[in-house]
């Protein structure tokens, strides 16, 4: 084996070894690297019940209730299979609205997710306003799953 060939194998060995180690590590971390749980994971008890965590889903149409005179809001989050009620007091991001994907951080208290932070998630699609309007006219609003 020439020295050059040996060095080539060394480089390939480094790439393969590190790649394999990362693959194993990523597999081991699995869902711990996920940013949020979805409502179904919460419903099946896969989300931590005693610790704070993030929940992500779509704000159910018609579920948003604001308490007059305060920043308190309540709504439900859905992934179209399960629904989790959420309550939050504070400022909401501009993109927050019914039908929007959002991510809330907080903890479960008696079946209600009490959030201390609400972030809006948007999808990777960009559309001019007039196109979005005519698309809405042509079909009933399909939920954009986050």
């Amino acid at each position: 084996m020439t020295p050059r060939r040996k060095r080539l194998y060394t480089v390939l060995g480094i790439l393969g070894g590190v790649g394999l180690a990362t693959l194993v590590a990523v597999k081991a971390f699995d869902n711990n690297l996920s940013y949020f749980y979805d409502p179904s994971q919460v419903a099946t008890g896969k989300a931590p019940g005693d610790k704070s965590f993030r929940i992500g889903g779509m704000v159910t149409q018609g579920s948003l209730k604001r308490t007059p005179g305060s920043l308190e809001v309540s709504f439900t989050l859905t992934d179209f299979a399960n629904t989790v009620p959420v309550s939050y007091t504070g400022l909401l991001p501009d993109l927050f609205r019914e039908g929007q994907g959002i991510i809330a951080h907080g903890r479960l208290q008696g079946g209600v997710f009490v959030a201390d932070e609400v972030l809006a998630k948007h999808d990777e699609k960009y559309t001019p306003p007039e196109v979005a309007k005519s698309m809405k006219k042509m079909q009933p609003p399909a939920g954009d799953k986050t």
Partner: protein
Amino acid sequence: MGKDVGTWTWFHKLASPPHFYRIAGRMIPWFAVPAAILIVASTYGGLVMAPADYQQKDAFRIIYVHVPAAWLSLMCYMTMASAAAVGLIWRIKLAHALAAASAPIGASFTLVTLVAGSLWGKPMWGTWWTWDARLTSELILLFLYLGYMALRSAFDDLTRADRASAVLALVGVVNVPIIHFSVVWWNSLHQGSTVLRKGGPAMPAEMLWPLLVGALGYTFLYAALACIRVRGEVLIRERNASWLKELEAA
């Protein structure tokens, strides 16, 4: 074999430092001018001609800086790591020089990506920063670049700096697919890819072309900067060579 020598003459010629130094110098305007034209066109197309997004309004226009910079932050790393591998295997000093020259450029693109993304995140998501997989892996990319540069500067001997930093560059390659697929493999706050996705780009042509033109412009910008920086690397490596003294005297 005789035919091979003829075919590869240009390559061996390119690997000679004086020749390479000259060629790289001559290439600079050929990269810099298209870079300027393309980036100006992309900026005008993105900020003026493209329509606003229906939900993000004008804030979505940060994409025309954020996404080309993000692509280049990855492309730069792949160039750096490939050059480092070539340098390790074939012991080509110029390849190491190119890798060393690319690192600060890549680090700059990564920083631009992170800052532009942060400025975009605050009005849309509601936060400057969060530890989701995409944001975290891109931050690790910045640390890889900085670590590579720090490791190089820790050696007095250039040959040892080249080899040690090349290994670090190779190890870091694993982060590149992680960044790209982070939004696919895990739930994340960051949205998925708009352009490189199944079913084609998720934006109309009038929004897409300034983005692609910008990406091309940033690529030319990288090439121009790499030519400038790699000449500096050649000067350091060849500081005692006779061709430099001749160049100086001329």
